[in-house]
């Protein structure tokens, strides 16, 4: 069926979906331009150019990961003396992992636990607040709603880095610096997450449904938890992934706020290890930095693999008009 490749998509752009599993939901007649054979989602059009481009992007994304795995398996001396993209010398991965976990009194484990704490409280809290706020903004009317909208949109544009130093000065007055709260509290604010939940809630929860629930005598709280929350699940997962990655990778805020290595997240800790190589008298431990980096990304990889199903359907939601 690929005899003539049409230069324009045969189906209206609005009805294309990102996943291969969803079928076309349009009832409108497909607009035919020069094609006799419309390409459904189930039978996507093949393009050599797109395949090559996707391949390059894939390679670009995977090569650093591959490099990380390969080099985490090397000893420090073969790290420097061998080709970077292939295994060489003794396979030292397990030895490296053991040394990473025990170096300097096992502080890596502590950093790992700190990062988990920041992610659970910071990203979890940010998602919770974004869901509550987004839902309220989408489904309730109150004075000043437009003002809130403008503030949120404005806040999306301000990078967190720009706020770090003023936040530091403020937290310092409050005696919060050098405590975990200094990292967790700013992480609770996610303007982009709020915006995303707002849009998502507006699209995915029919107002009629809420009205029906109210008519049936359900309280607002019960309506939220039992009716709305399940509908919001894909959006929640999306926001959770975004805030989780952001908190997991957060570097600048903890750098400004924390001085005590016992409270460092992994990002700062690994950087401190890396800096050792650039210190007079410091021990160069590139092998441990690399192995530590590998261990650091594993939970994120796991989270993506586990949540991507929800995430995909989350991204696709709203693209189909029902």
């Amino acid at each position, binding site marked *: 069926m690929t005899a003539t490749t049409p230069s324009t998509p045969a189906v209206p752009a609005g009805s294309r979906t990102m996943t291969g599993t969803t079928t076309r939901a349009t009832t409108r007649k497909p607009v035919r331009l020069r094609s006799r054979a419309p390409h459904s989602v189930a039978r996507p059009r093949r393009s050599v150019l797109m395949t090559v481009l996707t391949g390059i992007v894939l390679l670009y994304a995977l090569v650093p990961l591959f490099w990380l795995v390969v080099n985490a398996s090397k000893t420090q001396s073969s790290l*420097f003396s061998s080709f970077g993209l292939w295994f060489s010398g003794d396979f030292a991965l397990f030895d490296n992992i053991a040394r990473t976990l025990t170096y300097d009194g096992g502080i890596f484990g502590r950093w790992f636990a700190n990062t988990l704490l920041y992610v659970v409280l910071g990203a979890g809290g940010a998602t919770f607040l974004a869901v509550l706020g987004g839902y309220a903004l989408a489904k309730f009317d109150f004075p000043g709603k437009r003002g809130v909208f403008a503030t949120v949109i404005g806040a999306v544009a301000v990078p967190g880095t720009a706020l770090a130093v003023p936040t530091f000065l403020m937290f310092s007055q409050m005696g919060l610096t050098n405590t975990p709260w200094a990292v967790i509290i700013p992480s609770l604010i996610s303007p982009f997450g709020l915006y995303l939940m707002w849009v998502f809630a507006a699209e995915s929860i029919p107002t009629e449904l809420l009205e029906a629930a109210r008519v049936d005598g359900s309280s607002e709280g019960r309506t939220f938890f039992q009716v709305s929350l399940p509908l919001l699940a894909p959006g929640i997962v999306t926001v959770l992934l975004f805030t989780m990655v952001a908190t997991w990778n957060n570097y600048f805020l903890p750098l400004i706020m924390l001085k005590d290595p016992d409270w460092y997240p992994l990002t700062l800790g690994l950087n401190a290890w890396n800096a050792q190589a*650039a210190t007079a*008298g410091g021990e160069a431990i590139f092998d441990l930095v690399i192995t530590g980096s590998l261990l650091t990304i594993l939970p994120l990889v796991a989270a993506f693999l586990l949540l991507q199903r929800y995430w995909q359907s989350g991204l696709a939601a709203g693209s189909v008009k029902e």
Partner: protein
Amino acid sequence: MSIRTTRALRAVAATGVVALALAACSSGGGNDSGADAGSADDVAAALEEGGSLTVWAWEPTLEQVVTDFEAEYPNVDVELVNAGTGNDQYTALQNAIAAGKGVPDVAQVEYYALPQFALSEALADLSSLGADQLDGTFTPGPWNAVQQGEGIFGLPMDSGPMALFYNEELFTQHGVEVPTTWDGFVEAARALHAADPSVYITNDTGDAGFTTSLIWQAGGQPFQVDGTDVTIDLADEGSTQFAETWQTLIDEDLLAPVSSWSDEWYQGLGNGTIATLAIGAWMPANLESGVPDGAGKWRVAPLPQWEEGASASSENGGSALSVTAASSQQALAYGFLEYANAGDGVQARVDGGAFPATTAELESDEFQGYESEYFGGQKINEVLAQSASDVVEGWSYLPFQVYANSIFNDTVGQAYVSGTTLTDGLKAWQDASVKYGTEQGFTVNE
């Protein structure tokens, strides 16, 4: 670190300095840092009475010193915090000082950064606590570096008299003489690179510390400071001499385009593509841990000279421990400084591989007679200690050197990557530094 974070850090460092200068202005007359510091007797009493001290330092050998110190003075509890290395720590320190909270009692400060902190009254004057009795304890370079005007704002911890570390195997293999002058250095660079195009005499992508050290050795005095009167002349004789010689190396592509301290750098030092390093005397410990493949191949020679037969040297790196002005227990803090940098702590640090700043340790037979296995049994400390006593006098850093160094790559560094010459780069560095200094309220002459 990515370029973006470095930029961000720089921006913050710059803001920090401004905030610091403002803080210094506002606290003007009142609370004078040295006035309530106490006396030497107070130090003994404070050590006896005890308390807890927070120390911000990244020097690895301090861990042992803290353990020993706590054993000696059981009432004192020292919390050693690695708040970052170099610039990271200064940013943190400046932020803490600006915020007025969370300032440590003791901080590690490199010599180039010390004037900046001392002048903005962030550090306590240690003279009355007993530092004025320590004349002659330290080698002249570091001792000169911790003094600003009438005050003593830290005790030297380590020093970095320069020497030429070289891969002897490489020189023998290609039949090239180890250079004793900088002209000879250029010759050797050509010879090595011609013999094997993958070999470079050294790496340099523009490093403020290295450049200033070589200008220092050449007798240049580009930065002169008298209180808040600053003179910057990066076109003086010493600077010009450096620029001309180094321009040749850049023009002929004889420098490895590798940044110091990167993994590529360690790789190059190990695999014989970087043949020499003109660097501070603290380098042996880093070579041993970072370049295990180089064991037995490396040697140390005196720094090449600008004039045949001379014996001039300069300092590269090195740091002091200082007591902060905001510390509420300056006497106790000074007690720790004295233990770590002038007392029993020195030996513990030398044993850990640090290069001391104290004359007694430098001149001791044990230190000088040490035969380094890594350096093929060479008595490297003889060369390094000699360099410490050959340091050219009269050098000073800018009272805003941390900022100046942070813009080095945007100015002088251009000579390494574009058609700009080093002379133009130094001029640009001077202009930008003059502008900044004037904005900060200094009287800057060119």
